[in-house]
């Protein structure tokens, strides 16, 4: 029992010293502070400002009206009134429209043919051509939806008028023109805002990305400056891995707790992101996510021997990890094997689970599979962190031993050189005094160090 308490005390002092040094390395290093603390805030603010308008409205389109009739003018006006499109130009022909299109002045063209009204009046069908730019995704969707909806509405109106001219009463005419009333409800993100869609997963991903890079930076620094060795408590050969991992993890959890509190307490309110989830449920997702990110970071950090290595190796994975989580591309699009590989990242579980809880208002029960996988990752990465840290510390310890060994070796070598020198000296003297050489030859290098004593005796003798 006493031994246990002793160990506990030792561990506590080690945790404290690791944490102290961890804080010192973080806060004395602007590069690490930038990534570990400010990146989450800076990126969240910049991205949110970029996506603040949420939706694209009033996209400029051109209407080429060759009909110049009452109905065509009415249709043009309807395009202008539609929420997402704005008729900014009425070029005379398609050539001009195409030129404006190439110059990025307009993003869609509607062509109303010459016989537009004629066809409608005579009860035939009239064709309107729509040219949409699909090189920008959001642009295409807005323009196309609005233009098509407007045309359909205009068509239905013409049909209604025709029927009523025939003497059909209004409700009946309505039922004929619109046999199915289609209503589409968009849940959770009613205006299909782009920021509402991408910001929650991005903010969560930044946590993982910055944790991996920053922990790797600190780990690299510690190795580069041999901090793992210099904070070994007195009377011990090396640090124990448990207090090192624990001390580091506690430090990072505390730092991230602060920045995450800003994100969910302030940032979410500033930019009005959906908070449909129960706070406790969100926390239940974020805790295992943060822990697994940190443990994964500690595991990886033991590999880096230089402080800049982690950024060089890990910077590029930010976009792949958001893609592979299935939050931007639907996960059905991702090849299955790749999706499975992606499961090594904590973000692959946490991002979808978090979006479902926070944006869609799902309860904890709905995300149990993801959360349990996250806890499994916490334990796996916790174990790998301990093991790799143990290997690292052991290697450090081993090099220390090696150094000692080397020092003794150097000492021995010096002794050896001394002995040989003396031997030569002695041999020279022997030659001059013409003593038998047999004794001299027996002094071989290998055994000479063990004969140091004897040698001295010989030397003494000779001096006598």
């Amino acid at each position, binding site marked *: 029992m006493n031994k246990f308490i002793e160990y506990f005390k030792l561990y506590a002092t080690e945790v404290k010293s690791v944490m102290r040094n961890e804080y010192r390395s973080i806060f004395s290093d602007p590069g690490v502070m930038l990534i570990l603390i400010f990146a989450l805030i800076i990126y969240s603010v910049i991205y949110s400002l970029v996506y603040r308008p949420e939706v694209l409205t009033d996209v400029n389109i051109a209407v080429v009206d060759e009909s110049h009739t009452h109905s065509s003018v009415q249709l043009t006006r309807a395009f202008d009134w539609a929420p997402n499109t704005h008729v900014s130009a009425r070029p005379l022909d398609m050539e001009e429209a195409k030129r404006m299109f190439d110059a990025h002045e307009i993003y869609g063209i509607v062509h109303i043919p010459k016989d537009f009204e004629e066809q409608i009046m005579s009860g035939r069908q009239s064709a309107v051509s729509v040219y949409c730019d699909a090189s920008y995704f*959001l642009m295409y969707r807005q323009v196309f939806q609005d233009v098509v909806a407007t045309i359909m509405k205009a068509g239905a109106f013409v049909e209604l008028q025709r029927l009523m001219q025939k003497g059909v009463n209004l409700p009946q005419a309505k039922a004929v023109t619109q046999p*199915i009333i289609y209503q589409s409800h*968009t849940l959770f993100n009613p205006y299909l805002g782009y920021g509402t869609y991408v910001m929650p997963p991005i903010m969560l991903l930044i946590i993982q990305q910055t944790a991996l890079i920053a922990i790797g930076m600190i780990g690299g620094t510690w190795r580069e400056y041999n901090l793992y060795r210099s904070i070994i408590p007195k009377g011990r050969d090396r640090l124990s891995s448990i207090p090192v991992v624990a001390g580091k993890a506690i430090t990072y959890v505390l730092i991230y707790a602060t920045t995450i509190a800003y994100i969910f307490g302030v940032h979410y309110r500033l930019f009005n992101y959906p908070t449909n989830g129960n706070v406790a449920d969100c926390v239940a997702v974020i805790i295992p996510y943060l822990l697994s990110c940190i443990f994964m970071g500690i595991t990886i950090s033991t590999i880096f021997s230089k402080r800049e290595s982690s950024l060089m190796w890990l910077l590029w994975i930010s976009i792949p990890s958001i893609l592979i989580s299935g939050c931007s591309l639907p996960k059905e699009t991702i090849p299955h094997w790749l999706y499975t590989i992606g499961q090594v990242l904590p973000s692959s579980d946490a991002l979808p689970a978090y979006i479902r809880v926070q944006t869609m208002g799902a309860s904890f029960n709905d995300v149990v599979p993801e959360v349990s996988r996250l806890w499994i990752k916490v334990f796996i990465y916790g174990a790998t962190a301990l093991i790799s840290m143990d290997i690292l510390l052991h290697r450090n310890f081993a090099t220390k031993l090696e150094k000692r060994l080397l020092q003794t070796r150097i000492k021995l070598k010096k002794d050896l050189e001394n002995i040989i020198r003396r031997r030569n000296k002695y041999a020279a003297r022997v030659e001059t005094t013409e003593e038998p050489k047999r004794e001299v030859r027996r002094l071989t290098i290998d055994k000479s160090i063990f004969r140091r004593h004897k040698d001295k005796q010989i030397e003494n003798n000779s001096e006598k």
Partner: protein
Amino acid sequence: MTLVEKIGIVFKVLSRENSRIVHSVRYTCCLVVLPIISFLFFAVILSKGVPSDLPIAVLDEDHSGLSMKLVDMIDSTPTPECRYFVYDMNEAIDLMHKGKIYAIVQIPLGFQKNILGNKPAHVETYNSGANISANGLISKDIQTVVTSFSVGIQLQILQKQGLTAAQAMAQAMPVRFVKHVLFNPYINYGYYLAPCFMPLMLVMFSVILTIFAIGSELKYGTAPEWLALAKGSCRLALAGKLLMITLIMSILSVIMYFILFVNIGVPMNGNIFVLFISTILLILAYQAIAVFVIALTCNMRLALSVGGGYSVLAFTFSGLTFPIMAMDFPMQVMSCIFPFTHFMKIFVDQAIRGVSVSHSIDEIIYLLLFQLLVVFVLGRLRKVCTDKRYWGKI
């Protein structure tokens, strides 16, 4: 100094740099291995292009022939797949919360009866807005189905009234629209994302490597050796140092375009030569920015953090996902400080739209302007490289 001598010096610096590249695992990997891995990743993940068969739930309260027909029609469209048939709304919402479906189609009781009785019938969809890309594709498909279903019913009613098929069609849809989707007719996802992500990888690695190449000289105090080899000419020293990175990144960009245009199938309608030149200009522009950052901070790791962060930001401001014209004015202005934004405009114009080169000239000039940043910091770089106080900074 004659030109030949200058070239000789550049070659000396270049060969020194080459041995540095070969002797550093990080350097080699970031230069060749990681970019290729990232390209392959995007090639694989975007290979499917259009998302298809996204699961949705159907709440069919009518259970009639017509409602089943409508469900069949929805199922046969490319994007949605009616995978779950549920009995009440709570069950459907539960499925959505569990992340199993993207949308719910509700066909209320009396659907068939109303249609046959010449009364308006209802169809409602509940589409999750949490993923707007899936939402857009699913709602487009369902809307198309419901519209054509509705037109089909109108045609039948009108034909019953004695109209011919053509007359009925003209009556049901007096205004028809002919859809021309320009440049990306399949609305392929890969076409939007791949051209954005893959050059971004080139950019990221160019920035990191340039900062590392110069920063490591400062960190380990080998900068004077480097300058001495270039006979004290900062310009030649820089050229020799960065030439290899530019060269390899340009070769990688050829591989990238091969994957983009051949494997993923992004349309190439314009001038590939202009595109290639602007890719090299893009790499050079980011290298110039990297030199600028390292010369100002003279601290490799801070420079790496700043440069890395800056290069990642470029994606958001590129405008390919969220258009620049929709951003607030200050953000629109900010988007100009990223060479990547200008490059994406050239890419869209040259590769996808295929407009004449004259439309891309001003963007190319913007890319060239970024190279001037190097000129501003040459003096500072020389000072940093010769003054011991700036070395060994962590």
